[in-house]
């Protein structure tokens, strides 16, 4: 077991990336480590027909055209903005893209209400400034600036959480591709001393949450400099099952848990999410739908909760009862609205189904009821 809780993608898949790089004979834009086709292969996995000597696992699940459009955008001179509901895998795709393209996915700025321009450009090491004055050594470059200097991909998470003035600092970075440092006086010998130019290969992948729309809307000048790729919530049951299985396996490996997720229970989980989504789509007001976005990530969260619970407190097997209690426990955030929805769901949908189909559903129903009783 590694001593890092969660290794970045380029470390985790280092060996795969090395191998891909070794066989890659396609044209590579700028300083990319892999050609666009190989980047796609790395993210979407290989098939027999690709004729590779080894299998490359699929790491991101979704429409391939999203990946293609994202890669192509990074090869052009625009930034990439991944937009979508929470839990749709935007950040994961961004991480995979930067790991594949520049082997560094850690040049991340996290957008928050407290993000300032310094976080995007540079800051000063105050004690060094006092000792040596303002110079390149006493400057602390931001991850974006580092990305520019190394020709790598910089990431900006939750772009719309940061305020408009901070966002607008990106405009000049994306169009001029340099940051000027007015504090450094060019001494005339080196004209570029007070300007940090971006090396070829630099680009920015930003992510934005579509539920945050209206909080800090992007200016149209910034919008122009980004290509938007909208990542939808996965509703295809088959690919969703793949995602959940993939992430759960990873999780079990990480926690070194030896526990089986029975396929029937996975079906129960997927079905219940599909039902809840359908009811949310039919709901007239916010009170009639769960606060949760019911994304795939939420689904994985529910399963993770159930697995951990069964492992540490249960009988080391995952049961429908535990799954139901995790589902209700993780998704019921408002009392009484969310609980009322679950109550309605259990009695209106699960109860008839458990009578009709049997299987794990009756146990699931009992577990759900008990949890609602406990919570209300």
């Amino acid at each position, binding site marked *: 077991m590694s001593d890092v809780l969660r290794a970045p993608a380029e470390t985790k898949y280092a060996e795969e990336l090395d191998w891909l790089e070794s066989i890659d004979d396609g044209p590579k834009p700028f300083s990319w480590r892999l050609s*666009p*086709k190989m980047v*796609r292969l790395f993210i979407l996995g290989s*098939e*027999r*027909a*690709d*004729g590779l000597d080894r299998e490359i696992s699929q790491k991101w699940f979704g*429409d*391939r*055209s999203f990946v*293609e*459009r994202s*890669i*192509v*955008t990074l*090869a*052009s001179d*625009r930034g990439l903005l991944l*937009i979508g509901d929470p839990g749709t895998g935007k950040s994961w795709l961004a991480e995979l893209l930067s790991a594949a393209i520049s082997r560094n996915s850690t040049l991340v700025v996290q957008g928050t209400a407290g993000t300032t321009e310094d976080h995007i450009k540079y800051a000063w090491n105050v004690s060094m400034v006092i000792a040596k004055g303002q110079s390149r050594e006493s400057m602390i470059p931001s991850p974006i600036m580092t990305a520019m200097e190394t020709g790598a991909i910089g990431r900006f998470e939750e772009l719309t959480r940061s305020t408009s003035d901070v966002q607008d600092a990106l405009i000049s970075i994306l169009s001029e591709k340099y940051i000027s440092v007015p504090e450094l006086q060019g001494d005339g010998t080196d004209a570029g001393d007070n300007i940090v130019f971006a090396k070829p290969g630099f680009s920015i992948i930003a992510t*934005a949450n*579509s539920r945050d*729309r209206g909080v800090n809307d*992007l200016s*149209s000048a910034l*919008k*122009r400099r980004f*290509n*938007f*790729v*909208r990542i939808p919530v996965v509703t295809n049951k088959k690919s969703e099952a793949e995602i959940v299985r993939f992430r759960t396996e990873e999780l079990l490996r990480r926690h070194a848990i030896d526990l089986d997720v029975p396929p029937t229970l996975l079906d129960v989980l997927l079905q219940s999410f599909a039902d809840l989504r359908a009811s949310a789509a039919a709901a007239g007001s916010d009170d009639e739908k769960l606060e949760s976005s019911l994304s795939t990530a939420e689904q994985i969260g529910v399963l993770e909760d159930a697995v951990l619970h069964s492992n540490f407190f249960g009988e080391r097997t995952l049961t429908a009862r535990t799954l139901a209690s995790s589902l209700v426990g993780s998704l019921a955030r408002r009392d009484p609205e969310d609980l009322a929805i679950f109550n309605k769901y259990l009695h209106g949908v699960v109860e008839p189904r458990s009578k009709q189909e049997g299987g794990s559903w009756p146990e699931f129903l009992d577990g759900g009821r008990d949890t609602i009783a406990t919570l209300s």
Partner: protein
Amino acid sequence: MTGSATNGPEETAVDGPGRAPSPNGSAPASANSPGQASFAALREQLHEAATAFADGPRALEGILLGMVDDVDRAVREPLEIFPVCHHSPASALAMARRLREKQPKVVYLELCEDMAPLLGELRNCRLPVAVQAFASDVDGFPAEWAPLSVVAPITEASAEYQAIAYALDTPGVELVLVDRSSDHVFQWDSRHGERTPQDPPAPADGVPEPEAALHGEAVGVEIGDLRPRFAELEEHLLRHGKVRHWSEWWHQYVEVPLGDSDHEAYRQVMFLVGSLFRRLAPGDGDRVRVDEDRERYMWTRIREHLAAGGADPEDCLYVCGAFHAASRVEEFGVAGSGPFTISPRSATTWQHGLIPSSHAAIEAQFGLASGSVSIAATQWAKNLKRTRVQPYRLAGQDGAKKPRATKKAAPAVTAPPPEAAEDRLSGFLRRPPVLDTLDEAELLGWSVDIVRAARRSGYLASTADAIAVFETSILLAGMRDRAKPTPYDFQDAAVTCIEKDSVPGRRDVRRLVEIMMGGDRIGRVGYDALPPLARDVHDRLAPLELKLQQRGVQRALLDLSSRPELGACSDVLWMLRRLLPHGAARPIMGERKLGERSIQESWDLALGTHQRALIELGYEGVSIEQVLEQRLRRDAYGPRATTAVVLAAVEDATLYLGSRRLSDELGARALEVLAAERTADGAPEVLRRVRGLLAYYRTAEPVLPPWVESFVKAGYAHYCTLLPTAFTDEDATVGQVAAMLGFLFSMESLALSLGCDRAQLELAVAQSRPTDPERTALLWAAQVQLGALSRAELRERCGELLANPMVVPAYPRYLSGFVHALVPVPGLADVVVEAVSNAFGRLPDPVLLPWLPSLITTLRAGAADLAPLLVREAGRIFPARLTALDTWVPPWREVVEAGGPDGGRTGAAGGGSRGAALLFAHPGTLDAVAELLGCDGTWAAADDCPAGPVGAVLTARHPDTAIAWESLLTGA
């Protein structure tokens, strides 16, 4: 085509579409060996491939070699089979070329045989249109299937249109439709017995455009449905083709490579694709059965025709879907056999017509990707330009640039004998995918155009975006192993670069690209191809001088006073409004109500847009009057007809048809329905309609129609009978009971004059013992109207209710009852105003406030009838100015303060006696009335009347009136 299709599901090949497929890497086969050996090389190659790639060679070999057998068989058939795929420009191009070359004498076409007479009408239409078979009355099918509708859309860029145009415009050529009839489509429907309405497949993304619904709920039939029959194969092909949907795959891997290939290569490739999809189809029993039956049907018909006409199979061409060309049924071929008997059609009567279609409608109906038919049309135009092939086009085709004056047939080339079939497949399959070279100018044009279109739709797009779209398209195509971006790559690029977080206008970038790539084209059925009803409508609307055939909304202004001849147009328009869907004819100004006529009308007409609805109306009858009459009868005699529905039909018959005969007949029907009704459900509506009709007949006709009299009589007796139950029935609402009372009171005089007995009503009211407050209040009001209860008593009861703390909470419900009572007893308005005022004055807030919303909703529901009455009464009672309010005393208080009223009834009696004295003094009027009525009674002595201060006193005090009367009467 690349190896994707052939190697498809077996996953044998290592080729992506970008690599030259060579399943086994062996040397090219000898391509030109004639006869039996023609496909031997290919067979050998495939056999090796099967052995090399599959663990168990038998199954794979069976499929691969079976496909070659299918191709071989179809190629050898003496009657030339021309395989097509729907909406395939490559098919259309190959067809045009082949027709010019071969000049066949007979063309057999895979299209419902009963549609044949209509094809000639295509020249009057602008394509795309759909040939429709329609049956509203079904006989032999479950009744719930009705109406049955089958449509076969025809676009210009289709092989079938080429064949039709060639056959119809070339003298001596016969076109024979050989597919099963529309009737058989439903006879063979596998859902027989459990059919649900056909759900058109939802469009892949976005909101469907309104044009997508042009076909209504018809079942679509198409020539050359060619698509993998099971999802895995399609998914596999899409994945390896790096495309998103089937249309894109077909375009990329079949259309483009086939674009320039010769006839033999085209045929063989299409046979191969058809065979592949056929052999790799799941055992979907019903579907396979229907397909095979259709093939048997078609070949049986062809053989019948050949036997009857004695045509030489060499001179014939059989156009069918590639899927059917690879058939293995016994009946296959001119020499085929098999005991297939064609089942007789059912007794259902089918109507046929042409309806407008659109690319979007075709895409929606057949589950094609949105925009694909438009792209096919663009591709067709491009192919024509590039190859200089002259397409066939029906002479006089609407929308044609110019009629083709010369149809000089190219010298007929005799078809190569079937034995000489060369193996064109090996070469084709081994060829690397045809890559269109990058047409930079075209792509630049697209990029500039899409930015312009996006800007018009509200996007903040600029030249920089055009550059980005151009660059991204090339990059995307490169990633997908294409030298030239396809329209679909370009679409992706445009979405990536221009689409931001929200769509500013009505259409998103995806849709804009579709529109730009050719856009939706909507067909139009020409005048001559319209059914008689539709032509009649257009003829009758001709005085409006509008181009009603065109799509879009047009405004018609009818000044009926200065141009009375437009009245006939107005009649037609009102009927169309009644018959066609909303929006086809919409009155902006002017209305048609009983007894009213507008002097000016203005209409928004969209008959061109709703052409299908108008044409389908034509299947129901030959004139709109006839259709309307049928519909009215159907409504009135339907199993769910209620009295209100029938009365509405009577009203419509009077309004739109002006037909006394029909309205009398329907009125009689209303009487029947009323007699069978046992609830008060429809009472409010019945009351409203009967009042309206009565008012109309009283003013418009010299005597009431007999049915109205009977209806009033029967209704009076009917509602009298129902009244006591309705008062206690929990299901009947207060409004319904009030409407019953309204009927009884407002029709009373007429009913009594027709021989009804008032005692019946009095008894009914006396028998009514409601328990809930609303209905009790209603009953009290009825009693006041009948004179059984005085207003003073009513006031007293209300006062008691308010004074009793136990019933105060229920007081608002009494009030609700009183408000409803205004319908039957409008004279009670002052009492209701008083009761409401008292409620506001005396009810405690906890009772009053919760009730207010229900008062408001009641008043709103009856806004038209109740509110004006109450407001007028309140306006009369309450002071008009705020300053006057301080000194104002409500009239009911005044009466109380003045020592109490002397009671309604006694007052009335006293007044009566006072009036009698006046009558005695001036008996002339009454005598004249009595004489007129034929009464010969005599005057009783004036002394019989009680003495006292009578009306005469008043005349003495104000003599002017009486003097004026006197002078008038005496003529002085």
